[in-house]
């Protein structure tokens, strides 16, 4: 179930996951504080270079895309918790988007029913991923790589890649809604999901079981944790969150477009990894993921306001992911040294 970006990396991660201690409370906070400091730095930078950055118009746009970035990050985070990956979040998201468009525009279902069904579809596709992963024992990277293409292909065939742009007007109206002149209510939806995830991972048996399965699946299994079930539920949740992110974009765009989700992969990893979630599984930081998403959104928005092209954005995000991964590696080495270093010197004998 453990998989990471490359083979070389897999090795280092699996080694460190054995020896690595969970970051202490302070170390964890230090990471968050560091992240917050970087974010503030970027805000100061962008504001001084382009005062339009803090205009209520830009802040509103930023809050809308932040909401989406946070939820995309959560979608990947819940699977990282199990030590797995979900590369299909973009495809699941767009399937939910197109389903909602179809249900509202073609069938004419009431909005809440259509949205609920779209979320359900996302959850189902996530469940399908989890089920196949657990049943086949093949790692999640490969399964979700395949299902990403499968889901996307299925959606394109069924929808003929037609945009649904005659949605009920309430959709776009909600997307345009501003609180206090500069915040989209979507952001509060994302924060609400974050609170729910904090409760899940900190205080529920299910969340704890998902983390235990991620930290050491075999030990968890032998301790009576239904590991397969935990993994399937994590993927189901991931699917539902991906669908939520897709629907948020439907609100924002006022239309259900088949191109949604194609650029999710990078930010989906960036947010949790920057925030301190371990790629190897067993530890998540919900607040960290939100801050990570904020950093991504800030940079994207800042470059946009400064009218620096999209090409640069890709380059920047790539650099930041690389940096975040180095940070993950450094954290593990650091934790290893701290936990074992002194003792080891004598104990290795």
């Amino acid at each position, binding site marked *: 179930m453990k998989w990471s970006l490359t083979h070389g990396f897999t090795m280092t991660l699996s080694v460190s*996951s*054995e*020896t*690595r*201690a*969970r970051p202490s409370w302070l170390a964890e906070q230090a990471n968050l504080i560091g992240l917050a400091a970087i974010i503030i730095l970027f805000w100061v930078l962008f504001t001084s270079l382009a005062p339009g950055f803090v205009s209520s118009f830009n802040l509103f746009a930023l809050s809308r895309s932040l909401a989406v970035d946070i939820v995309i990050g959560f979608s990947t985070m819940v699977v990282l918790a199990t030590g797995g990956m979900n590369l299909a979040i973009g495809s699941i998201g767009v399937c939910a988007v197109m389903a909602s468009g179809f249900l509202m525009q073609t069938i004419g279902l009431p909005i809440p029913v259509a949205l609920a069904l779209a979320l359900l579809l996302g959850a189902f596709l996530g469940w399908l991923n989890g089920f196949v992963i657990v049943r086949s024992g093949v790692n999640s990277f490969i399964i979700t790589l395949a299902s990403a293409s499968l889901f996307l292909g299925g959606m394109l065939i069924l929808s003929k890649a037609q945009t649904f742009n005659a949605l009920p007007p309430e959709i776009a109206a909600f997307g345009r809604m501003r609180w206090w002149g500069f915040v989209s209510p979507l952001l509060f939806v994302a924060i609400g999901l974050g609170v729910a995830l904090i*409760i899940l991972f900190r*205080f*529920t*048996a*299910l969340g*704890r*079981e998902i*983390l*235990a399965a991620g*930290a*050491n699946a*075999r*030990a*968890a*299994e*032998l*301790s*009576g*944790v*239904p590991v397969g079930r935990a993994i399937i539920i994590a993927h189901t949740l991931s699917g539902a969150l991906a669908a939520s992110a897709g629907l948020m974009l439907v609100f924002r765009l006022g239309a259900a477009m088949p191109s949604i989700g194609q650029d999710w992969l990078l930010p989906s990893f960036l947010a949790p990894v920057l925030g301190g979630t371990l790629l190897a599984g*067993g*530890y998540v930081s919900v607040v960290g993921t939100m801050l990570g998403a904020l950093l991504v959104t800030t940079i994207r928005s800042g470059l946009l306001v400064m009218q620096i092209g999209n090409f640069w954005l890709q380059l920047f995000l790539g650099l930041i992911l690389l940096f975040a991964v180095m940070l993950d590696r450094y954290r593990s080495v650091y934790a290893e040294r701290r*936990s*074992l*270093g*002194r*003792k*080891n*010197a*004598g*104990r*290795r*004998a």
Partner: protein
Amino acid sequence: MRLTIEGIGKDFPGVTALDSVSFEILPGETHALMGENGAGKSTLIKIITGLYRPDRGRLLVDGQPVDFTSPRDAIAAGISAVHQERNLIPRFTVGENIMIERPPTRNGVIDFDKVHAEARKFLDMIDPSIDTRTEVRHLSVAQMQIVEIAKALSLEAQVLLLDEPTASITGHEADALFAVVRRLRDEGKAIVFVSHKLEEVMAISDRVTVLRDGRIAAAGEPIANMSRGKIVSAMIGREERVAEMGTRAVDRSKTVLEARSLATSFGHKDVSFELHKGEILGLYGLVGAGRTEVARALIGDGKVTAGELRLNGQSVTIPDVPTAIRRHKLGYISEDRKAEGLILTHPIRSNIAISVWRRIASKLGLITRAAERKVADPLVAKLEVKTPSIEQAVGKLSGGNQQKVSIAKWLAAGVEILIIDEPTVGIDIKTKTAIHELIGEITRGGVSVLLISSDMPEMITLADRILVMNDFTLVGTIENSRRYETMSREIMGFIHADAEAGHAATHG
């Protein structure tokens, strides 16, 4: 070749790993190197093989000071090591692995005929039965060790270090290995033998050096002058204390677990036994005899394919581990604490409470830290887990304390039957006794224990009765008389008789 270790010292930040260690390794001897975990054995081996450089002191080869800056220097000087972890390339053939350092070439390409011919020469010195054209991944662990030794010989090793060579091979294979060791010694090679197993050391070595806390506790003592007790007291600084087991009431009228002619997906045949209330039932066998697999089949981590399993008189089938734990109060402590037993990165608190998460959750399904601590705190205190805090990551605890946490997890779950697999593997002698006493203690509380161990003294200290397993079937049951000599002879008798019978059956 004579290797002299002279006043070697090595410091790591905050700790002195070795301090003025001096002794000599002579040609034509098997020299045992012993010491508890943390005594400095590995550090010393790393210095001898050129992985570390000493901070103080020096190494001399035949009286000439040497300075190794890398393992290559040590190999060039004739010192090779066979480490605990295998250093062979699984997809390469035996011959390629042996000759990997300096493959013979012709016109710039590797001459494979010559590779195998050369490798054959060295293998023939120790074990002619291994084919040099076999890929290493098809070999047994014991055969891989032989290949590594052949590789060391091909490098013209005069001093050969064997680090825990018998840790993962069966008794028979160990006997074969010892024969090789004796032959090499008789040819004038020096063998440095690192092992935790006293019986082995007593049987095979000529002299023994014991390290304690980085210092020499016995330097090159002839084994004839040493008794088991003497070596142990050199290792731990005092006499070995045998666990105080106290009086334990085993109620033989109550059978809590009964296996009737079980066969399993692992290949067990006709396994029948009874475990009584409050009993410690030993399951002895050599590595690979199928003991751990019995445990796995019992807890639903493998399939029972025939026969009947009865718990408290009821016939049951256990489909998975959670069912074993929750419905049948049956728990299993793996021999591999790190990979299968504990979640090293998580705190002690949740490692103990994990088995009862579902039970301690509130009506809303929420688990609070306080609820977990209510379960874990008393157990940490009762089992005397030494830790600064219950929030400590389990990976930071010593092996003995990790084992206590494993046991605490099952006490928290309220198991009635506990299968304990190799409870003291990798745990030093001091803590071993505490774990033994703890196991006795939990049976006094009414828990019945199925104890799996390859450690004969441990088995004889703890078990009330001992089942002997060989080749996935039970070959005998013995009432434990606690007399080491007669018990070990009887147990080995069963195993050898079975092996003989098997041999006779296939060849006669």
